[in-house]
């Protein structure tokens, strides 16, 4: 169990660091969704199933949709280039 905990915690930190080093915005969103999924497993390990369900529905589902829509509407314009 402790190995799983460490795996998830290190995964969280790796995700958070990696989100800053992508050139395009789409990978950032996917990394954010991965982060949310791992966090929701951590809530289960911490005996908070309410948080796990809410995080999976809100943090992963709705947040990801919002981010995707935001970059979709920003792509329409000239000079987007997904600047870092």
């Amino acid at each position: 169990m402790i190995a799983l905990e460490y795996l998830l915690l290190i995964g969280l930190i790796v995700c958070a660091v990696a989100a800053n080093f992508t050139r395009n915005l789409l990978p950032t969103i996917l990394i954010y969704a991965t982060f949310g999924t791992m966090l929701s497993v951590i809530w289960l390990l911490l005996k908070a199933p309410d948080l796990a369900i809410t995080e999976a529905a809100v943090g992963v589902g709705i947040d990801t949709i919002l981010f995707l829509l935001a970059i979709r509407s920003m792509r329409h314009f000239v000079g987007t280039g997904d600047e870092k």
Partner: protein
Amino acid sequence: MKTPVWYQKLLRWTEGDSPVLPEPAAHREQTREPAAEESAYESGPGLLSASAGRVRNVLLRVITIASCAVFLLIMLATVAYLPRFGDADNAPENETSRRYIEQGMQEVGATNLVTNIILVYRGFDTYGESCVLFLGATAVIMLLAVDAKNTTEEDRRVLARSDALDRENRNQILGHITTILMPVILLYGLYILCNGHLSPGGGFAGGSILGGALILCENGYGVGKVHSFFGHRIYHVVKVGALILYAVLICYTIYVGANGLPNVIPLGKPGSILSAGIILPINVAVGLEVACTMYAFYTYFGRGDL
């Protein structure tokens, strides 16, 4: 009777026709010289030369990294001295938690203790949170709505083009999969919504799932399908109605609890679906509110209209 000046200004400001202080800005607009400004800008901000600016930038970067590192070390040192993780005598081990765990079910009626806390014991807090959601949706609508003041002609053209593209490429596979998935998602969302007092979940999770179902419906079947049962009018009625229902229930709980009056809503048998007094209606209200908010986020980010 003459209306005061500040009222006229406020009226103009709320109409969005002009900024709060229009006169001096407009004056400066006319008298400025574009060429001079351009050259002043190219020479860099302030008195620093280009190389000095770069040195300052590097210095700022180093200072920022260093302060982040120091902050991290201080916080890690603090964490090392915190009470052990998972110990029984941690900070939350106090009479508040004891009361919530040992008497929560008798006093409020739900077997899910977290629901007890967020909807009844700390209901005022959660009501504020619902208002935050409402305000968030309102702010998004203000910022992104497609209307005469927000949108230029080019934006409109781009939007129309992407709409036409979406309609042309309407995906058959997505439509069929939506038909298969929709009942399951709706059932799951309603289950989580209505069983908030018995099992994990509740208004927020169930409402987001229902909102996600609406979003999937729009993607699979097109906007017209959603508008046939969830138009502007129904959206506003459901959203405001749910918030008002929530407010009334919370007011009732606070009034009864603060004055020590008997609660007329029966608590029922703990563990059955029709139990826990006001928690089930509050969960439904919160779920509707959240579903509406999520759907509004989606439509205003995507199309700029409901």
